[in-house]
């Protein structure tokens, strides 16, 4: 248990660190924000003055941080000027959509990367491996911005997929099965964009880790015992290569989350990404902070999940933890 406690504490530390960073960013130039707010006709001067007073600009930083932190802890994430509503509910609705996209893309990417990488490692140096290496190299060279835009243009010109949004008009009146189909068809493009941009790196790493394990003497010994090939690959090799791969999983959550920001904006998927962008352009301070914090929360949660996975998968960590 000690390991898990340690990792949970680490996650909490990360969250605190992120909150401090975010707070520092926002605190360093609040002047800009409030000055620009005054220029915004949608916000009354009284509101600006009240907000300015509330943010206690003249108090020392640590005091302001504690004040801000306690407000956040109470679920008070501030007020959005653009949407004229509290930030909290606004965020949660969008967050659900982002999670849907990111989790699907992560699962799909790994479900593809693992078998491809393992197969590639077992065919090391031969034709199938070389072809796959070329394919991943080609994908690697196409950045996610280019890929997403390209897919969008493809959709627009062929009309095969809906070109944006999450649901069609008249979604409410559809039967449950049709609702699912509608959602799925809207998800294809963004998920494809995310998966294709993440896949090459994942496949390469899986291939490298598994190939290294396949060289190990204990595997050749197992081979000599007559254990079937598939078992060897998946139960023996994969288990041993699991350690670095699970760390990679934690890292991939971060890159997919980053990628989802861009993909959501391009494909008009109503997630945190477009919200953050709008908020930045509209100088909607509290929405910006809320979005950034929430995305970091997801990231930390994803990494903690990876830590738990590691605990479950790697017996060495379990024994090391119980030995303490």
């Amino acid at each position: 248990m000690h390991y898990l406690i340690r990792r949970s504490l680490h996650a909490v530390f990360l969250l605190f660190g992120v909150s401090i960073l975010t707070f520092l960013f926002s605190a360093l130039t609040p002047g800009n924000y409030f000055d620009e707010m005054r220029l915004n006709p949608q916000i009354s001067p009284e509101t600006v003055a009240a907000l300015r007073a509330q943010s206690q600009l003249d108090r020392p930083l640590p005091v302001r941080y504690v004040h801000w932190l306690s407000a956040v802890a109470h679920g008070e994430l501030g007020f959005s000027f653009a949407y004229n509503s509290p930030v909290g509910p606004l965020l949660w609705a969008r967050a659900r959509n982002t999670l849907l996209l990111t989790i699907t893309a992560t699962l799909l990417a790994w479900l593809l990367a693992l078998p491809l990488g393992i197969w590639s490692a077992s065919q090391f140096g031969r034709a199938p491996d070389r072809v796959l290496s070329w394919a991943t190299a080609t994908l690697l060279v196409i950045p996610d911005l280019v890929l997403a835009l390209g897919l969008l243009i493809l959709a627009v010109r062929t009309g095969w997929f809906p070109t944006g949004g999450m649901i069609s008009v008249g979604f409410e009146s559809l039967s449950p099965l049709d609702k699912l189909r509608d959602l799925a068809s809207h998800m294809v493009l963004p998920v494809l964009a995310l998966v294709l941009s993440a896949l090459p790196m994942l496949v390469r790493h899986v291939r490298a880790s598994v190939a290294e394990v396949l060289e190990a003497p204990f595997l050749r010994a197992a081979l000599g015992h007559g254990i079937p090939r598939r078992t060897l690959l998946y139960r023996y090799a994969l288990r041993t290569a699991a350690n670095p791969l699970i760390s990679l999983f934690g890292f991939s959550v971060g890159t997919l989350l980053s990628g989802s920001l861009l993909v959501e904006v391009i494909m008009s998927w109503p997630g945190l990404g477009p919200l953050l962008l709008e908020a930045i352009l509209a100088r909607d301070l509290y929405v910006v902070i809320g979005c950034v914090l929430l995305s970091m929360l997801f990231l930390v949660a994803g990494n903690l999940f990876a830590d738990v996975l590691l605990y479950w998968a790697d017996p060495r960590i379990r024994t090391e933890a119980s030995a303490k």
Partner: protein
Amino acid sequence: MPLRSFTKWLVVLLVLHGVIAAAGFFAPYSPIEQDRDRPYLPPMRLHFFDTQGHFHFRPFFHPLRLRESAFDQYEESTSTAIPLHFFVRGASYHLLGILPMRFHLFGASDARICLLGTDAFGRDQLSRILYGGQVSLLAGLLGAGVTLFLGALIGIVAGYYAGWRDELLMRVAELFLALPWLYLLFALRAFLPLSVSPLEAFLLVVVVIGLVGWARPARLVRGVVLSVKERDFVRAARGFGASHLYLLRRHILPETASVLLTQAAILVPQFILAEMTLSFLGLGIPEPISSWGNLLASLQNYSVLVSYWWMYLPALAIIPFFLGYLGLASSLQERPAAYKIVEKKSWNPS
């Protein structure tokens, strides 16, 4: 041979960068030259065979005119054939910002040849892509420079002095590494003023990009410093009374060079992409300065997406650069042939 492939990729990159640096020569027109009568021209085709089927050595093109029924569709007016000339004198420009020149690689008189089409204001896309590349590449290179400088500095302090400085710096680095970089980039950008002059915007973009990625180079440099610090030749130099600065400058820093170089090859393309992303979303370089990012900004319009596909082409410009930098990074990470394990056999239990 690792050295040979490194040189090969370096040459490729130098050529690519050279073309962009000499954008004035390769671009037929100035990037701000407008032609409002002809917005959204599609890419023009070059012909070698005329309507009668005769072959012409010198390629030529037909100017485009509006189709009668449509308001934004063009067709070639095959009555006029305008030849393409090479090494023509055109609008004057400054090569690399210093040398005034008037020569362009190709051009035509009487009409404009727009090989990649034009945008809403009739500006030639090819020229805009070439000039825009200057901004994007420079932003990427400078951003990488800032990051590497910052990362090296922090890595050296952490590795050389160790102790609480090391712990603190590495914890902060861990934090930065753990965060999704695009959100970090946006957060940094968000808290800075939006409407700034192009030069300020450029500097802003460089600084913001530079501040995001220092953690990984810092960790790597720290590792190198920690291990080199304990080497006997450093001890021997200390035994001669060397100062810390001397040790860092003459013994430790040279060892970090290869790590920094590899990181540069990895970071530069990422930072070019970061600039593109920022400018695409309106948070980076503003008009009228073109950068690869803001050239794509018009694609956010549905109508542009549907009707004017050539506006996507600036996105492809970055691909050869990605390829070059990827090749360079791979060649740097290859171990020397002497240490390579002889030929891995494919794993086949039959």
